[in-house]
């Protein structure tokens, strides 16, 4: 989960998120260098003694400052498109979970093996256990195996919601009347948090998502089906 005042990305828990972090670092370095150049140009503008305002015909400079940004954009776009198509790959998921957004809770359906359906409500602060996370902990977590491709089918029963888990690099809109699909493979066990990411009413900030990722061996023993 994010710590207080965190502005950077969370650590990756899926290969896609690792790629996204790599791309983010790449884009940020380019942005830093452009900002540095612009600051230097600003400094030069403020400290120059040249005052001629009738300059024209700077063909070479105009060519350079047209072609260079185009090259920079290509350098950013190519890795971006690579990751975009990577996120759309569907690699034979082992498990399919349905996630349905409501005002203001999530319903999860494990229909592959038996018919487990449950609601996931945020725990009110009064009901939190000591050490529990305010506005993040829920009564029923989504328990999933690691190192297995998982398909999430996301929809909504009323208004727009969005199912997001930053550490997995996931954010998919829950749209009434439409079924959206996202797939992921988690690489390490743990408890991971997300929050609804599409404004959906008064309690939009109070319908979190909590994934409990456990080793496949333990998942197969059936802890998720003992509700």
């Amino acid at each position, binding site marked *: 989960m994010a710590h207080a005042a965190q502005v950077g990305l969370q650590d990756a828990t899926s290969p896609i998120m690792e790629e996204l972090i790599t791309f983010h670092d790449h884009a940020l*370095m380019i942005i830093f*260098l452009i900002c540095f150049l612009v600051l230097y140009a600003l400094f030069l503008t403020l400290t120059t003694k040249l005052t001629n305002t009738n300059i024209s015909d700077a063909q070479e400079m105009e060519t350079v400052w047209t072609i260079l940004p185009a090259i920079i954009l290509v350098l950013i776009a190519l890795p971006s498109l690579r990751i975009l198509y990577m996120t759309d790959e569907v690699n034979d998921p082992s498990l399919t979970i349905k996630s349905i957004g409501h005002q203001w809770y999530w319903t999860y359906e494990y229909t592959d093996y038996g018919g487990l359906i449950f609601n996931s409500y945020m725990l009110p602060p009064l009901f939190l256990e000591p050490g529990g996370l305010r506005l993040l902990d829920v009564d029923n977590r989504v328990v999933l195996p690691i190192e297995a491709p998982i398909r999430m089918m996301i929809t909504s029963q009323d208004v727009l919601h969005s199912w997001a888990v930053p550490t997995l690099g996931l954010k998919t809109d829950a749209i009434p009347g439409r079924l959206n699909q996202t797939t992921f493979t988690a690489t390490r066990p743990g408890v991971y948090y997300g929050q609804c990411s599409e404004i959906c009413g008064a309690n939009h900030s109070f319908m979190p998502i909590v994934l409990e990722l456990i080793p496949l061996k333990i998942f197969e023993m059936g802890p998720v089906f003992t509700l």
Partner: protein
Amino acid sequence: MAAPPEPGEPEERKSLKLLGFLDVENTPCARHSILYGSLGSVVAGFGHFLFTSEIRRSCDVGVGGFILVTLGCWFHCRYNYAKQRIQERIAREEIKKKILYEGTHLDPERKHNGSSSN
């Protein structure tokens, strides 16, 4: 203001953010690229000044040198970092396969020895 590290966990280095957003300490290859870029900038700028004695133009050359050297080091380092990550992933998968399948008919070493003896 990161959470305190668990016992046994490596401590996260204090973040130093250039221009307020580029976290040099925690971004792989960033510190290395910026340092080499700074060195390149000083060498290029100072070298130009020694030859021409023009201060403003030497500063321009220095800035240009910084950008080019930083970019060059950055791409070189990130390419090697990506290659290393792929090799680590392959090694991890092979170790896992070895542990899971050692002694069985799916043992990769047995398959490899079988094909080399044929």
